[in-house]
């Protein structure tokens, strides 16, 4: 039966201990590097030292994160905690999809990559019907036209556009 402290804890149990532990360890590691990574300047007031604010921030992280860890109602990493860590790991797949998209755009161009990326990821998510594939393509086209064509956000043209003939080349670099 969960204790009163566990019962009153805000949020789920799984993963809390691992997160709090990792947070404090990271803060301690960063604090151990403070003399290497920041400077102490002579004839300068204490609060104006370049080291002052990183020290305040890391001190706060360790003090409050440590107290949070100490007050957690659990002391052992359970099987649920490890299951939760594996769940965090599964997100890496989508982060890699995102990075693949980022790296492909400067080479293959914003429009072609988006037209391929959105339906491909939708396919991966289990949408196979014509309607959803059509919607994916429509969304991809609309995004490129709206942001690059109309709002003119800064996304460079793909290296592949260099192979297009004269006027079409500059049109594609500017708009897609």
């Amino acid at each position, binding site marked *: 039966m969960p*204790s*009163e*402290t566990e019962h*009153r804890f*805000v*949020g789920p149990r799984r*993963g809390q201990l691992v*997160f*709090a532990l990792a*947070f404090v360890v990271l*803060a301690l590691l*960063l604090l151990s*590097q403070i003399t290497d*990574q*920041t*400077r102490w*300047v002579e004839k*300068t*007031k204490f*609060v*104006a030292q*370049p080291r002052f*604010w*990183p020290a*305040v*921030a*890391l*001190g*706060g*992280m360790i003090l*409050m*994160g440590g*107290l*949070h860890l100490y007050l957690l109602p659990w002391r052992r990493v359970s099987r649920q905690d490890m299951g939760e860590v594996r769940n*965090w790991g599964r*997100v890496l797949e*989508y*982060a890699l999809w*995102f*990075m693949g*998209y*980022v*790296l492909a*755009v*400067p080479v293959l161009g914003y429009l072609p990559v988006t037209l391929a990326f*959105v339906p491909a*990821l939708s396919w991966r*998510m*289990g*949408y196979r019907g014509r309607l959803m594939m059509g*919607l994916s393509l429509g969304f*991809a086209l609309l*995004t490129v036209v709206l*942001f690059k064509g109309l*709002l*003119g*956000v*800064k*996304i*460079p043209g793909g290296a592949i556009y260099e192979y297009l003939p004269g006027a079409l080349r500059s049109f594609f670099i500017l708009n897609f």
Partner: protein
Amino acid sequence: MDLLLSALDILMRWDVALALLAGSIGGVLIGAIPGVGPAVAIAILLPATFSMDPIVGLTVLLGIYGSSMYGGAIPAILINTPGTAVNALTTYDGYPMTARGEPQRALSLAYSASFFGGVFSVICLILFAPLLAKVAPLFGSREIFLAALLGLLLVVVAHRGQALIAGALAAFGIFIQTIGLEPIKYSQRYTFDQDFLGSGINLIVVVLGLFALSQAFVLLMDEDEKVHITKLRGGMFQGLRELARHPRIATVSASFGVLMGMIPGVGEFTAQFMSYTYAQKTSKRPQDFGNGSSEGLIAAETANNAVPAAAMVPLLALGIPGEALTAMMLSVFYVHNVVPGPALFQNKMDFVVALYLSLLILNVLVLLFLLVATKSLIQVVKIPNRFLGVCILTLSFVGVYSLRNSATDCVMAAAFGMLGYILKRLKLPAVPIILGMVLGGIMEVKLRAAMARVKQPFDFIDRPVAFILFLIIVLVLVAHAIRVLKDRKERKEAEWQTKTSSTGFGGLMLRRKDSFLKDRGKRVRARHSKLLRRLMDLF
């Protein structure tokens, strides 16, 4: 009057009109889709607004901020799922109304209440602006430092039961902001000799990661849900008539919204909670609250829509954002070299009033749009979760990559996206990180400037405003400590109640008698007292 005319002059442009229209309709749509809040939309659109005029860019963002809560009421009422986080209280009374066959009445009442809240707050603030213009110049470096500290403190203590980790995350935000080249002594801080860290970690990269990418990850990992929507019948104007029957609740709730919105870190949730409690306590039918009470719906919706205009006050008057959305808007000001703060109120009052007027027009536009288009709009609720995740991931790319065309920024955004995902899974707040970043930067600059003129520590609070702010900080800390002690006492009492054995002194002594009488108990106590003596000798 001249001020109003010059403010109107700023707004009389086709691009501002277009921004108003796009912001209002876009905001309603974004609010109506559960899973995409205004924070996600503003984070994605932020870099796109950098190329616009400040008034145009801010109007789009304000439009999304102000109108998303209107849209958020739609799924809250129809499918019991709040469109934006602040519409959670709307589900209490909105959904029971739908369940008993009155969805149209609930929607129309929610729109009318939101409209009243929005318009009331803007009018209050336009009337209040001259006073603010007089108060704002009283804020020097030390006052702004103390106000920023107070804002950060309020954000942290607002997370009841999670204040420690919220504080630790705020400190993490302050740390992220210190990474890079320190601008006064030109020394590198925590760059680990990496060039990409030299210019620091961009706020927008962190915002996009923590809000947009993390939400995309949550949706992609989620399951799609089947949504059934009740058909709407009847007119949409009945809510306005019903609202007119509860002027007291509407006015008090809107006032709570304005007051709470102005205090950094407090915002919609506290305003809603206070106005809902007030409405319930003063109602003739308190038993209806939570079961489809029109007064409860009015209290919740009026209060949350009165907040956006008020939340702009600390941002515009002092340059201190009170929550994540205004923190994002601050970067639009910085990009255009318009520094919000006391000087803005003194020199560009027409700009401030123009912003408020645009919010006023926005509320009218949104109400008209919703009264006409609700029946077709509710279809957006049906968009499947995981497809929405794909869309947000695609749009996040525009936000991050268009900033500096840097793949490193994207890697960092993805890393912050994963951190945001973990925080969401653990139900921990991400907002303190953002506010730590923004307010940490402000605090560093202002403290350095303030300390240059301070000889004794007491000089820091020798001005009236600084002293009042200092007192409020002390009060907040004391109130928080009292609350923590009270919670602890309650927990202990609950623990004792679940115990079967007596908690009285006599009972305790009886259970410990073995330890007192037996040899082993004596040995243990002797060992403990010896250790204690040794420890005392050390000092």
